[in-house]
Structures are given as structure tokens and as C-alpha cells.
């Protein structure tokens, strides 16, 4: 045989029939769906097809106020005074219902977000259930968490989450907040509201008391109204660093507690003694998982100079096998970019990469005619001064830089205002630990990447935000 064999994959689409979407959704306040006071709404679309999935209410200040009032009442009358043992059982119920409805929720997530069903089914949804399960167990054990003898809830939490892992981010926010005895008003992202609205039904099935969880959909203005509401005791935000800065300013001088999980520009450092095939898988997972819409994505590859060519050759060969397309297809590796706006941002920054002299290479793949798509791409010849080495692209774009010594790797890895995550690839254990000690990042993955677990704290140094989600430490942001 000459030349490589080519495989054609028959389509293997996951059925949409498990999801029953309504044509429109109101706001979920005090246990009931209700239209916004001024009846404004917006459409949410499937980014893979541009098909409108549903019309969703846009919450204004009056709606946010109603939601916060409901949350306050539930906090004061029901949830705050409830023994942790009973709160725990509500959260266990939610975890179980999420497990029972996981396929439906995974398909809905893929429709609204554009991520491959393989990821929503095998990564997002199992983690959502696990997060509720883990924090359910803490609800009656707070005095054992090492956070003081008599830990108390804060009150009403206003939570604003991003579009990259919509239901998972909801779980990261709601599970610890409720476990600690707080009630919540959560605003999902404008482009991915659907699974949060389905989650409202999960709360209903669990008989969660009205007002404990409230979901207000909308865009930036809705989020701002929530964050700035005077009766919100705690603000939790996951999203971009610029918005995180605005929130930090907005709450300055108040008594509100804040946790922020913001952007990143993680270095993924590959030493010459690393198992290279394994490292290549890790590099691919690090930047192309979820279309690179990951705050902790390994978007800067730092590869030791003497293995640069070999790594790049293997990496390109591997990237050429990635299947880009229909997110509902079970064989798809890389799905759709979440929105036209995000696609434009990725295009603009990669154009800057060309203009500044880096060399672009994209995986040869056919992109669907409709929807928002960007082929897996890498840039070589990138210097630390290039904007594609400094700014978060939040897309399937890898910038490749080189280093010669471990000290140089550390210096380059830390040469960023961010500090969310980092990766190290080497067979030498002592070097892993030496690197981990010096990398200014909240999570360091060694010979692996993008690992998440409810038992493991996650969060950033520096301008990647403050506070940790997950683990025992994840309780701290919701307790006084």
C-alpha cells in the first residue's frame, strides 16, 4: 500500500428526541416561571446550524430585584435555618436527578453550546452530577472543613456564569453555595441559557423549596443589575478578566464577598525527556478540548528547542486526524464556535498573529456551510511579545514558543498577567515538582491536562481571579 489509508466515518448522530424544548422560556423566580416585567426577550441559537432553539426572557432590574427578594425570603425562612443534614439530602436528590436526566441535558448542552456530544456526555454531565454529590456531602460537615468552629452562610449569592461549560459552571456555583446554606440568583450566559432553564425543572422535581434557586436570563446588563443589587451578599463570577475587573470595582467599598474565576493563557511546557506521543495527546486535549473555549486551556505551548521539530511534526499529524463538524455526531472531536461574536474575535486575533509575523498552520478539514466554525490552528515562530502569546484567544488556536533550560521555561511560563493553570511534561518526577513550585498558577497538571474533579480546588493567581472552586477550599467563598 502506498500513501495513508483514509477512513470515512458514517454519520453517528445522537438523537435530539430526548430533549423537549419549549419555544419560549420565562425567568425562574421563587419556584415558578414568569415572564419579565417588560416582556423583553432574546433568541438562543444552535451555533452549529444557526437555527433558533428558543426565545428566552431578558431580565431587567425589576426582575432581578424580584429574584433577589425571593432568594432573601427563602434564605431567611427556609434554607438558612434548615439543618445541614436536610440540605444535604436535597443536594443528593439533585445529583441523582441530574444522573437520571444526563443524556437529555447533554444533548441540550450540545445544541445550545456547540460542543461535541462526546464531551457534554462524558465530561460535562458526569462532572455536574459529581459536583452536587460532593458538595451534598459537605452540607452537614461544614464544622469539619477547617474553616472555623461555627461556619455561617453569607446569605444571597448572585452568580454569573459563562457560556463555555454552561451546566458545569452552574453546578460549580450552585452546589457549594447551597451546601453552605446560601440561596442563589444565577444568571447564565446570554448564548447558552437552556440547560440552566432545564435545571430549574430538576429543582422542581427535587422539591427544592421555592426561592432557593432562581434563574434570571439576560445579557451583560442583567448580570450587572444582579452584581450591583444592594441585597446580594456574595458575588461569584466566571468569565473574562475585563468583566471581572468591572465587578471588583463595582463591589469596592461594599460588604459583598467576591470570588472571580477569569481568563488564562496557560503554558504547557514540554521537556525533551517527555513521552512525546503522550505529550502530543495532552497538547491537543489542552487546546482543542471544547474548541479551546476553556479559561485554563494550554494555549501557549512551550517546547524544549531540541525536540521542537519532532513535536511539531507529530502534533500536526495528530491535528490532521481531528474530526471537526456536527457536534451531535458521536465521532466529532471539535464542534462549533459558540457564537458569531466569538468567531469574529478569534479571526481578528489570528489575523494579528499573521500580521506580527508568526506562521499559521491549520488542520486540513472541511468546515460545514452553516454555523460558526474555526479549524484547529497553530502558530509557530511566536515570540513573547506577540499578542497571540499574551492575549486570551478562547478558541482552537495554539501559539508555539521554545525554551532551552528549565529556568527559561519557568520565566516564559510566568511571563503573563494571568495565572490559572499550567502543564508540565517530563519523565522526571523531581523536575515536575520543581516546576510546580515555581509556576505561578492555581492548577498545575503534570503529564496530563484539563483534569477536573469536585474534590480538587480550581482557580487562579494574579489576573485570573481569586477564590477557589472545588474541594474543601471551595466552601470558603460561601461561608463567614
Amino acid at each position, binding site marked *: 500500500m502506498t500513501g495513508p489509508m483514509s477512513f470515512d466515518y458514517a454519520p453517528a448522530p445522537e438523537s435530539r428526541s430526548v430533549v423537549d424544548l419549549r419555544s419560549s422560556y420565562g425567568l425562574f423566580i421563587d419556584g415558578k416561571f414568569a415572564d419579565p416585567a417588560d416582556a423583553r426577550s432574546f433568541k438562543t441559537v444552535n451555533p452549529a446550524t444557526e437555527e433558533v432553539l428558543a426565545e428566552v426572557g431578558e431580565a431587567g432590574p425589576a426582575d432581578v430585584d424580584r429574584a433577589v427578594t425571593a432568594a432573601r425570603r427563602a434564605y431567611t425562612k427556609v434554607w438558612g435555618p434548615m439543618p445541614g*443534614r436536610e440540605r*444535604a*439530602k436535597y443536594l*443528593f436528590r439533585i445529583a441523582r436527578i441530574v444522573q437520571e436526566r444526563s443524556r437529555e441535558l447533554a444533548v441540550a448542552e450540545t445544541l445550545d453550546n456547540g460542543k461535541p456530544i462526546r464531551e457534554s456526555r462524558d465530561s460535562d454531565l458526569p462532572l455536574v452530577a*459529581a459536583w452536587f*454529590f*460532593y458538595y*451534598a*456531602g*459537605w*452540607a*452537614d*460537615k461544614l464544622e*469539619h*472543613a*477547617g474553616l472555623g468552629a461555627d461556619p455561617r452562610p453569607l446569605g444571597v449569592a448572585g452568580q454569573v456564569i459563562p457560556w463555555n461549560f454552561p451546566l458545569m459552571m452552574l453546578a460549580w456555583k450552585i452546589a457549594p453555595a447551597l451546601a453552605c446554606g446560601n440561596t442563589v440568583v444565577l444568571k447564565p450566559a446570554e448564548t447558552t441559557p437552556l440547560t440552566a432553564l432545564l435545571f430549574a425543572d430538576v429543582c422542581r422535581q427535587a422539591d427544592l423549596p421555592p426561592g432557593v434557586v432562581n434563574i434570571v436570563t439576560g445579557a451583560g446588563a442583567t448580570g450587572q443589575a444582579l452584581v450591583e443589587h444592594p441585597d446580594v451578599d456574595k458575588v461569584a463570577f466566571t468569565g473574562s478578566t475585563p468583566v471581572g475587573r468591572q465587578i471588583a470595582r463595582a463591589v469596592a467599598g461594599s460588604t459583598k464577598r467576591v470570588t472571580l474565576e477569569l481568563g488564562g493563557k496557560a503554558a504547557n511546557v514540554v521537556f525533551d525527556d517527555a513521552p512525546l506521543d503522550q505529550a502530543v495527546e495532552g497538547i491537543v486535549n489542552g487546546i482543542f478540548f471544547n474548541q479551546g473555549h476553556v479559561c485554563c486551556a494550554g494555549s501557549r505551548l512551550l517546547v524544549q528547542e531540541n525536540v521542537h521539530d519532532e513535536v511539531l511534526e507529530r502534533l500536526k499529524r495528530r491535528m490532521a486526524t481531528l474530526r471537526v463538524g456536527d457536534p451531535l455526531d458521536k465521532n466529532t472531536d471539535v464542534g462549533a464556535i459558540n457564537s458569531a461574536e466569538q468567531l469574529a474575535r478569534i479571526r481578528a486575533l489570528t489575523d494579528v498573529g499573521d500580521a506580527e509575523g508568526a506562521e499559521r498552520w491549520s488542520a486540513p478539514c472541511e468546515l460545514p456551510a452553516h454555523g460558526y466554525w474555526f479549524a484547529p490552528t497553530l502558530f509557530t515562530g511566536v515570540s513573547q511579545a506577540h499578542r497571540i502569546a499574551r492575549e486570551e484567544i478562547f478558541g482552537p488556536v495554539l501559539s508555539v514558543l521554545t525554551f532551552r533550560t*528549565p*529556568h527559561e521555561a519557568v520565566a516564559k511560563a510566568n511571563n503573563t498577567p494571568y495565572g490559572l493553570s499550567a502543564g508540565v511534561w517530563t519523565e522526571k*518526577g*523531581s*523536575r515536575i*515538582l*520543581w516546576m510546580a*513550585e515555581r509556576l505561578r498558577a492555581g492548577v498545575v497538571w503534570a503529564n496530563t491536562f484539563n483534569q477536573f474533579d*469536585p*474534590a480538587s480546588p480550581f482557580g487562579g493567581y494574579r489576573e485570573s481571579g481569586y477564590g477557589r472552586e472545588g*474541594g*474543601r477550599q471551595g466552601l470558603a467563598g460561601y461561608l463567614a
Partner: protein
Amino acid sequence: MSERLDVRKTYKLFIGGAFPRSESGRSYVVNDAKGRFWANAALASRKDARDAVVAARNAQPGWAGRTGYNRGQVLYRVAELLEGRRGQFVAEVSRGEGLSTRKAEAVVDASIDRWVWYAGWTDKVAQVLGNANPVAGPYFNLSTPEPTGVVAVVAPQDSSLLGLVSVAAPVVATGSTVVVLASETAPLPAITLAEVLATSDLPGGVVNMLTGRAAEVAPWLATHADVNAIDLTGVGDADLAGDLEADAAGTLKRVRRPAGAKTADWTDGPGTDRLGWTMEIKTVWHPMGV
């Protein structure tokens, strides 16, 4: 019309996920709280105890090898199934301990919640009992608790369900497997609980239940070389407890002494007291350097 005659249950042992009679062929009379005949329970022998230890040992590596998350789900499943059989347990506890239905309901509810409490600990105990150690040198140094192995438990005599759950659940939550000698006078809820365990996702051999006489069976467990720890909570006779502790010294088993004259109130919050004693702290050193 003649009244229908009820079908009674044969109460047997629970070993390795199966329900055998005692290999000795013996049984003993169990009366209810009013002194009326209730059932003939299996009277466990030395051989039964040894079989139970073998089953527990065989199940232990697999059980400890599960993730804490998975063990938590299994323990939570036990609570779910217990809740589904709540009425049956209320009736048994009420009849065996002579409690009013209301009091028996409170005991059963607390027993269910106790499984939930320990289900939550499976993936947290290492976060509370383990830690990174800031040693004075370029070393990564981490201490984590690991299950000790096979634990023998003499269950409380006076609290046939809640007391039993309170001593057995923490052992399995942390990854050890257990051989329980149930309350001598009120052993039946233990066997009914075994029916719940057998139909939950708990692997066979993780919990093994014996009924019989502590004075006869406990010494075989205390001297057994493949038992790592023994809980004497249910041993009421101080002399026997002392003898068992001395027996356990032969293989340096971890021993939990009985509470003494003070009667335990099992409805009290369980705390973390019973989590650590069946765990070994393992500390790993690794150099840091380029």
C-alpha cells in the same frame, strides 16, 4: 373464611454476599422485647468467623481501589434502599427493642441519615485527615490516610440497627471491609439490613454479618492474623474486653475499647471520631529539583 397464616423469614448469616446458615448447624432462640419467641437465629461458629474474614479480605483490595466518589454513591444507594424498606425496619426495631412506633421511626430515620452522613465522607476524609507537610528541605511531602484492611466489629447490644450502622458504616466508608458480630439479644435487624446491602451496589464481602455469642466468636476474631483492627464497642463484660484486647495484641491489631459504663446515645451526631481509627497515615517523600 380462615385467617391467612403469615410466612416467616429464616434469619441466616451474611458472608461474602451470600446468606448461609451457620456451618455448625446451630441456632439460638431470639425473643422479642416482650419475651415472646420471634425466630431461631444462626449461632455463628469459629468456622463462620473465619469464612467471614476470608470474604472480607478478598473484597478489601477492590473496595479500597474504588474511588471515594464511587464508594460514596454505593453508600448513598444503601440509604435509598433502606428508606424504601423503612416500614419493615420500624416494625423490627420496635418489636426487638420494645420501642413505640414513633421512637422506632426516629431510630430508623437516624439510621438512614447516618448512611448519608458517611456517604458524604468517602471523598472528603483524606481532605480532613491528610495534609501536605512543610518539611525543611527541597521535598514534596504528603500524608494521606489509607484503609487499614479488615476490621472486626462487635456491634452495640442495646441499639440493634442505629448502633450497628453507626459502627459499621464508617469502616466501609473509608475503604476497609468489615466482619460484624450483631447484637446478641437483638440480631434480627442486622440480617434484614444485610438484605438491603445484598441488593444495593455494595460488593459481596465488604460487609459480613454474624449472629451469635460475643464470648464465643469474638476471641476467634481478636486472635485472627488476617484481621487488622477490632472494635469492642458491643462487649459489655469488662473482663472479656480486656482479654480480647490482649488477644489482639498478638498481631498488634488496632483496638477500639468499649465505651465503659456510660451507655452511648447513638442518636447523637456521629462526628468524625469513627473515621480515623481504621485508617493508616501514609507519607510520601519526593525530591524537588531540575
